[in-house]
């Protein structure tokens, strides 16, 4: 199923360091041996935490994952082939500080922009997969992210393979203005075409999925899964709190809140994600051949 135009890249190399998004949620600081769980305060041994898929063994808090980490725990070993790695992020508005911000994010994450896309397999089931990098300018969607998702959807139609996207994003990228807004429209239009072609699209919402990503392709999955405790919503919690000037319910905009209100299909703990995805893929496996490992 893999064409010769796929470019292989070593994706599972570890980024050198990370941008601070939420310092208490950043376990992967290089050289750190012990990490305090931001949820329950438990002191966790870094290596053990990683082995436990970055889930706190005491309270099951799901730490945020980088895009390479996400793909590494989801896909079969050595099955990932990156696509469209060469797209250059441009600064179409000559926006203040954007070029510097981009350069810093690229250096810190080792990625070109806020999403990794490619082909891979889950327990033998082939998929076209994308994972957001939450540490790249908040995983925001600008032109490159929108373009890579669109190309991935087009590829899914062409190859008749399922599409799987892991979102972790603050929303549309402010620094690219209306170009970013248009990526919402573009990715949704791509999903519309995917639907017409009868291609399965699984959307996994992870912490955090908000703003223009929630309000576009991420909520259009045939099946929508979320990780426990993930922040999922349209407007930021602070914005809502300021607008309403009232306290919000504690579970507001969590995966569980979305499940309760009928907005997603299921909440799957990280340990169950891979088998869950494999089961969904097998239930949609007409005309799809399982690849050998």
């Amino acid at each position, binding site marked *: 199923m893999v064409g010769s135009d796929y470019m292989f890249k070593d994706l599972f190399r570890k980024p050198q360091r990370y941008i601070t998004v939420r310092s208490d949620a950043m376990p992967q600081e290089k050289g750190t041996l012990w990490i305090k769980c931001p949820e329950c305060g438990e002191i966790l041994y870094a290596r053990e935490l990683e082995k436990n898929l970055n889930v706190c063994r005491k309270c099951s808090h799901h730490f945020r994952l980088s895009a390479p980490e996400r793909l590494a725990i989801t896909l079969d070993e050595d099955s990932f082939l990156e696509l469209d790695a*060469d*797209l*250059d992020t*441009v600064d*179409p*508005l000559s*926006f*203040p*500080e954007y070029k510097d911000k981009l350069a810093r994010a690229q250096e810190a994450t080792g990625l070109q922009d806020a999403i990794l896309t490619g082909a891979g397999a889950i327990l033998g089931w082939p998929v076209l997969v994308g994972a957001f990098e939450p540490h790249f300018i908040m995983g925001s969607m*600008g*032109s*490159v992210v*929108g*373009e890579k998702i*669109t190309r991935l959807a087009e590829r899914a139609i062409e190859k008749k393979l399922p599409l799987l996207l892991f979102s972790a994003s603050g929303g*549309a*990228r*402010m620094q*690219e*203005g*209306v*170009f*970013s*807004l*248009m*990526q*919402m*429209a*573009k990715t*949704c*239009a791509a*999903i*519309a*075409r995917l*639907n*017409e072609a009868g291609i399965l699209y699984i959307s996994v919402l992870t912490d955090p999925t908000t*703003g*223009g990503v*929630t*309000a*576009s*392709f*991420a*909520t*259009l999955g045939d099946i929508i899964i979320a990780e426990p405790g993930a922040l999922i*919503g*349209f*407007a*930021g919690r602070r*914005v*809502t709190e300021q*607008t*309403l000037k009232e306290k*919000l*319910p504690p579970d*507001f*905009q969590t995966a569980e*809140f979305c499940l309760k*209100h009928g*907005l997603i299909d299921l909440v799957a703990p990280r340990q169950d994600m891979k088998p869950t995805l494999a089961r969904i893929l097998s239930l949609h496996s007409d005309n799809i051949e399982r690849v050998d490992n």
Partner: protein
Amino acid sequence: MAKMLLDFEKPVVELENRIAEIKNYTGEKGIDLGVEIEILEKRALDLKKEIYQNLTPWQRTQLARHVERPNALDYIRMLFTDWLALSGDRFFGDDPAIVGGIGKFEGIPVTVIGQVKGHNTKENLARNFGMTHPEGFRKCLRLVQQAAKFHRPVISFIDTPGAYSGIDAEEGGQAWAIASNLRAFAQVKTPVISVINGEGGSGGAMALGVGDALLMLENAIFSVISPEGCAAILWKDASKAPEAAEAMKMTASELLRLGLIDGIVPEPLGGAHRDPQGSAGALRQELRQVLQALQQVDPETLVELRWKRLRSIGSSK
């Protein structure tokens, strides 16, 4: 006469008031000051040209948000006949921030959907300041699908600070409602023309903006976040909104230059709120032209062209 005056409007309005006073006075007293009045009127026109042809993005933002700026209901009144307002999303409620219905545009039945801000506090409270709820987006979707069934063109009016953010909106799936519109509008088999007549605020604006032609009124704005919000994030200072308005390239002329919109509808000198009829007249001309062109295209081709247009945005390589 305008009740709410922006700083840069004051000199013009003061001069115009003076001319009106003089005219009144000369009329009463039977004195002929025709030459003087002519000179003053020319000065007022020059002053207007000077001010309104050099507006900063922030000044345009203020015009775009002007409380007296014609809203969707005003344009519906001025541009469509046989208007039939339609309500509800058929699931949950009717969003007062969204107007929808069927009317005739120059004899042709069209579906109109639009975000509506109020012209005063009372109206704004009733219309939730033009902030759309999920049921509003779903009402739009319903009416657009209905339009497609009858091969009726759709005209959407965009004017919102943004989609409403609140507990009920989140519970109702605000993001899901917007995404569903983006997906459905991309494929609806009838011409869709979107007009940003005021404030095109982020995803809430985008949700009514997918179609075959995206037009902006000359002083309208369209942005991913409000200039105040942008300034707060960039410089931790919302009072730097004027600088943020520059940086975001949110005016009609800048967005046309970037290829993100398809056309600009000129406004009367002084802005749409100073001459709503004039503004509606210019919009009528533009709509007539675009509609005529789109009606020549068969629905399948229309959808394919719509996709190609969207597909090309932000794919520099």
